[in-house]
């Protein structure tokens, strides 16, 4: 029953999207400056029906209707209700439905919130957005239909991968999707802007809020994903430069660049075509990322069930998008009289974009290069953290300095009268850095430079905070927290302690200033898994800290999987992180203990970073 309802609703949606496109074209031909009332109504209906369609699937998950293949493959009747609900978007088919929801809702909201912009621009945006919606609806119906029927109906589902049964991972996809699927609306707007010749300041104003919204959500989405990886994947890292993570980072770089160039377009009415390119690039990268992740051409920690036919569909969709973008860019591009002064704020925005493009190209290249070597020279290579760290980190140092100096410059023209200030701040940063390393004793040139540059950015942002008017608060908050983010990552990386050893029950071991003892092992029976829980005592002879940690080895039944749950004790100074794993054919357990300083502050910095985006959004809404 639910299967039929779902399919029916999907078909209605295809009809409604076509109807919107048809009516929009009809409306374009009229002289009047108003958009037909029925276009609004159909758009609203479309969003509503997509939501109902999604809730139908959720209902199927809740009642465990295994007549749907998707439910059968990804759920189990014994699964807790919360994960039944989050299971709706925890799989390929359901998550595509979430795509379409965001596409349609953004389409509707963009239509009603931009009433003071010209009719043609709004209609073209609507048409292009609905073409995107149609593309995804066809993909869903012909290739990845969540409402596909299975017969005979299985009695029980296969269950959801236990490592995905996690609250952080339940909210991760929706956040991320609002981010990168949300970028579709300014892809459509950019195309519409070229078609209807609606450029400049006003165009910038019409998309600014949307860019900010998607940026904030993308940032939060990446954060939640990292937190999940940190406590769930069990080896204490939070960023692995894994292809799937890179796929979410690439649009973020493009969005961040766009956010800045949009300011120039808004204030100074230049860089129009560059801004358009960034709008198109952001969504293109989002779809590229989806292609890489879902087609299974990459080998990654984050496994999705893969299928090449999906890949072909997304690839065709992607190529249509790119060639349409290129076609309009080539046709509409004309050299503009962009006017940029050196040392002005515009220059620094350009420099921001310059660095963002560098990061983007590095990460894109690192992600795609193995595919190219494999196809062209039949040589499989890996590109992992050591590559990204050695290429990117040195450049970050320079970037942070420029990020601190940039906002001091004025629009249009600026003279550096405050060189003395800069030197003073730099001196302060160096002194703090020396103090940190003096007390904690560790040395490497690159980490010194990272700390100095991030401290430089932090101090100058603080000074800014007391000098400037309240209007630059969003920028100060974001820049300040970015400085903190890099500072904390740097400190965390430098002063982490890691001990790796084997222990058996009742045994104790002393390593440097730490003493470890495996006091107890217990077998627990939970609802959907069994767990071996270890009780470990950790004594630090220097700080006199004593910790008891309870790492787990879990054995899930549906489907059968072994996972290692880290035991983490967090406080404001740092995390004690411990994982225990069994060694095959041995009574010993491998113990990995880590002390990760200032971990929680890394998360807080990212939250503050996105808060800056929120403040900017708020300010923008108040001004318009």
């Amino acid at each position, binding site marked *: 029953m639910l299967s039929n309802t779902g399919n029916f609703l999907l078909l209605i949606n295809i009809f409604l999207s076509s109807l919107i496109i048809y009516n929009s074209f009809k409306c374009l031909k009229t002289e009047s400056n108003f958009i037909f009332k029925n276009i609004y109504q159909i758009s609203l209906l479309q969003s509503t029906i997509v939501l109902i369609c999604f809730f139908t699937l959720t209902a199927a998950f809740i009642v465990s209707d295994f007549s749907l293949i998707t439910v059968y493959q990804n759920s189990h009747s014994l699964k807790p209700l919360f994960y039944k609900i989050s299971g709706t978007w925890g799989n390929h088919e359901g998550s595509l439905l979430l795509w379409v929801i965001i596409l349609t809702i953004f389409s509707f909201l963009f239509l009603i919130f931009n009433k003071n912009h010209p009719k043609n621009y709004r209609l073209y945006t609507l048409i292009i957005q609905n073409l995107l919606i149609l593309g995804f609806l066809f993909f869903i119906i012909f290739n990845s239909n969540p409402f596909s029927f299975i017969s005979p109906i299985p009695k029980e589902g296969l269950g959801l991968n236990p490592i995905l049964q996690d609250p952080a991972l339940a909210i991760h996809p929706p956040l991320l999707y609002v981010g990168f699927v949300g970028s579709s609306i300014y892809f459509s707007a950019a195309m519409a802007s070229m078609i209807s010749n609606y450029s400049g300041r006003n165009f910038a104003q019409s998309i600014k809020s949307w860019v900010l919204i998607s940026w904030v959500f993308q940032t939060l989405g990446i954060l939640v994903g990292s937190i999940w990886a940190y406590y769930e994947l069990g080896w204490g890292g939070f960023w692995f430069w894994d292809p799937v993570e890179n796929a979410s980072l690439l649009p973020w770089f493009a969005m961040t660049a766009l956010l800045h160039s949009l300011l120039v377009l808004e204030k100074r009415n230049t860089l129009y075509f560059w801004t358009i390119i960034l709008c198109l690039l952001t969504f293109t990268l989002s779809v590229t990322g989806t*292609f890489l992740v879902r*087609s*299974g*051409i*990459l*080998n990654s920690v984050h496994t999705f069930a893969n299928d*090449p036919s999906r*890949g*072909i569909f997304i*690839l065709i969709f992607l*190529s249509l998008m*790119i*060639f349409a973008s*290129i076609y309009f860019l*080539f046709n509409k591009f004309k050299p503009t009289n962009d006017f940029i002064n050196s040392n002005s704020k515009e220059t620094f925005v350009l420099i921001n974009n310059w660095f963002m493009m560098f990061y983007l190209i590095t990460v894109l290249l690192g992600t795609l290069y193995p*595919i*190219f070597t*494999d*196809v*062209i020279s039949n*040589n*499989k290579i890996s590109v992992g953290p050591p590559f990204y760290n050695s290429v990117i980190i040195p450049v970050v140092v320079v970037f942070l300095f420029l990020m601190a100096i940039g906002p001091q410059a004025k629009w249009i023209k600026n003279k550096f009268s405050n060189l003395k200030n800069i030197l003073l701040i730099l001196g302060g940063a160096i002194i703090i850095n020396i103090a940190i390393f003096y007390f904690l004793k560790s040395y490497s040139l690159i980490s010194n430079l990272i700390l100095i540059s991030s401290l430089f950015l932090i101090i100058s942002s603080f000074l800014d905070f007391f000098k400037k008017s309240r209007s630059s608060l969003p920028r100060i908050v974001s820049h300040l927290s970015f400085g903190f983010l890099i500072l904390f990552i740097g400190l965390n990386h430098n002063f982490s302690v890691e001990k790796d050893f084997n222990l058996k029950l009742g045994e104790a071991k002393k390593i440097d200033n730490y003493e470890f003892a495996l006091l107890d092992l217990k077998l627990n029976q939970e609802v959907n898994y069994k767990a071996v829980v270890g009780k470990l005592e950790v004594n630090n002879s220097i700080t006199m800290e004593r910790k008891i940690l309870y790492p787990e080895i879990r054995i899930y039944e549906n489907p059968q999987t072994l996972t290692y749950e880290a035991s983490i004790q967090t406080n404001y100074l740092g995390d004690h992180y411990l994982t225990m794993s069994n060694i095959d*054919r041995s009574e010993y357990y491998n113990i990995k203990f880590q002390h990760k300083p200032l971990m929680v502050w890394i998360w807080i910095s990212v939250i503050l970073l996105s808060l800056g985006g929120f403040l900017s959004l708020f300010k923008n809404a108040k001004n318009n």
Partner: protein
Amino acid sequence: MQKIIRSSIVLLFIFVFFVFYNSLNRETNYSTDYLVGKKLTKFNLKSFHEKNIYTNEDLKKNDYTLINFWASWCAPCRVEHPYLMQLSKEKNLKILGVNFKDKKINASKFLNELGNPYNDLAKDMTGKQSVNFGIYGIPESILVNNETMILKKFIGPLNNQDINYIKDIINSL
């Protein structure tokens, strides 16, 4: 000038799509096929029973050698064992078994139970020696000729098809 830039951008994208399209139908899993055609590097394998040591020189005496990595705790090894027994009847082929990270008692029991197909039997208690052969999991088998050049690698248990492939090669003399 503008034309050149434009067409090169379009060509670049076409090239990227071509690569993406091709990669869709490729095997993404890791394989060690590129080792085929290379010679084995120097190795020193301790004998399972006696004190002697097997090196590359020992393999040069045989026309063909199949080096088979196995253990009593490895379930797929049980599956491929009958096929090894079949191969042990071939005259042109010697089989060198390498007992991998195993206990001697269990390994002996395994062979007593299922039969011993190995002309020579070596052991690798720590698994370190197997790295010389590019082994990353067992069972794995390597077919080499009398110049110790690798003719074929078999990852996972041997099956009927593999057996016939080996027979074809060793009897083609």
